[in-house]
């Protein structure tokens, strides 16, 4: 049987269901910590960056450091775990980056992915509705997750985010 026979096709009038608003929560903080540093203990080490530190991070990484507040954890046995957010053109991604004591990337995990169109992603109020959700992320996920075929957005912003966090560790997280 032709597999497309069972497709639900939305007519050219473009009344398809929105993908915008598509959101997936992958991991909460504890799960991301275990995924990158299995079995390691974590000590919260939140940090407020100074204007000089932000400037130094930007100079090293070539990427703008927006936030002053850094959600960082010190890893038992050495290294750092940082939770951060990156903004793309249409997407808002929360990611976790593990950095070894010697300043190399141990692992990167996507914690949350939110997609929208029409500029909402630049609106702090739109983003604020998701902040803090990661902490309470369920192990199993919502029923309305969409599986999408069709190029997702490039991971360039995530790559830049990781670069920025490496610079942040070198500038502001020591020991």
């Amino acid at each position, binding site marked *: 049987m032709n597999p*497309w026979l069972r497709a639900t096709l939305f007519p050219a009038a473009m009344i398809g269901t929105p993908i915008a608003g598509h959101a997936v929560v992958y991991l909460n903080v504890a799960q991301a910590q275990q995924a990158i540093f299995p079995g390691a203990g974590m000590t919260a080490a939140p940090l407020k960056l100074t204007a000089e530190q932000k400037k130094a991070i930007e100079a090293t990484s070539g990427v703008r450091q927006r936030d002053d507040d850094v959600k960082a954890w010190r890893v038992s046995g050495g290294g750092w775990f940082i939770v951060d957010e990156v903004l793309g053109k249409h997407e808002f991604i929360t990611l976790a980056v593990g950095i070894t004591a010697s300043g190399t990337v141990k692992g990167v995990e996507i914690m949350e992915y939110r997609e929208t169109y029409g500029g909402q992603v630049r609106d702090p109020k739109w983003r604020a509705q998701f902040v803090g959700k990661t902490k309470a992320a369920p192990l199993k996920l919502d029923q309305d997750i969409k599986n999408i075929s069709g190029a997702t957005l490039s991971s360039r912003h*995530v790559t830049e985010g990781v670069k920025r966090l490496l610079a942040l560790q070198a500038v502001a997280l020591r020991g």
Partner: protein
Amino acid sequence: MKSPDPAPPDGGHARRARPLLGTLVEIAADAPPAVFTRAFAAVEKVQALMSYHDPASELSRLNREASAGPVSVSAWTGEVLRAALDLAAETEGVFDPTVAPRLTALGFLPPTAGAPRADGRATWRDVELASRNRVRFRRPLRLELGGIAKGFAVDRAVEVLQKAGVAEGMVNAGGDLRVFGSVEWPVEIRHPGQPGLSAASVPVCNAAMATSAGYFARRRHAGKDVTALLDGRTRQPLDPDTSVSVMAPTALLADALTKVVFALGPASETLLQRHGASALVLDSHGFRAIPPILPHAT
């Protein structure tokens, strides 16, 4: 929470995602973390071997050295290259893994450092894959497996999950996805004109689906919008407002065949059927399935 019975395909699985292959690779499966890690490791291995951007990859080494003499590559790189060359032969160059210099000219790919200048006449016919995965280029050229390696990576991740005894799951590398198991997974296809909308919802069961479209990979070139999708014979970019989805038994096939359908349209029907595949083309005129189906009431 996992619902009792029957489990909806995307409600009962843990999901993980990592930035790999220049996109987000997502895995959904009811599997322990160690199995997720191994499945991602397979994708990482494909990236390490076949990345065009990484100077340390086998592919980059080929581009630097294979025009001077044979270079041995790993079984995986050999397998993907064999599939790419077979499809190039079968399509008489519509699918051509040597179009990279054109993509560099259009601004989609960076130049390769330390490689001899590519010969403008070079095509897939100048790539020799001999026994024991020895590769030689007859002229300096740029091999690029982006149109097929992503699908191969999805297949390898699925293989890891299945070998670990996972009954059902999905691996999705930026829209090139494969599902396995007995349940159907609803898959949304983005509208090529409005990628924030779904143009079609398709149930997929034990199959792969890949979509190629221009919405997130288009640039202005010589006064018009172009995509990174080229017809290998003419090296001309294809319509940026069209989307092609292919359903096939493997993600490698689905991924590679989207480019062929893009270039050939309905003329790709025989080829698709030979591979147990079919396609859905979306453009400003509407929908077209290849092979055709009766018009679907909407």
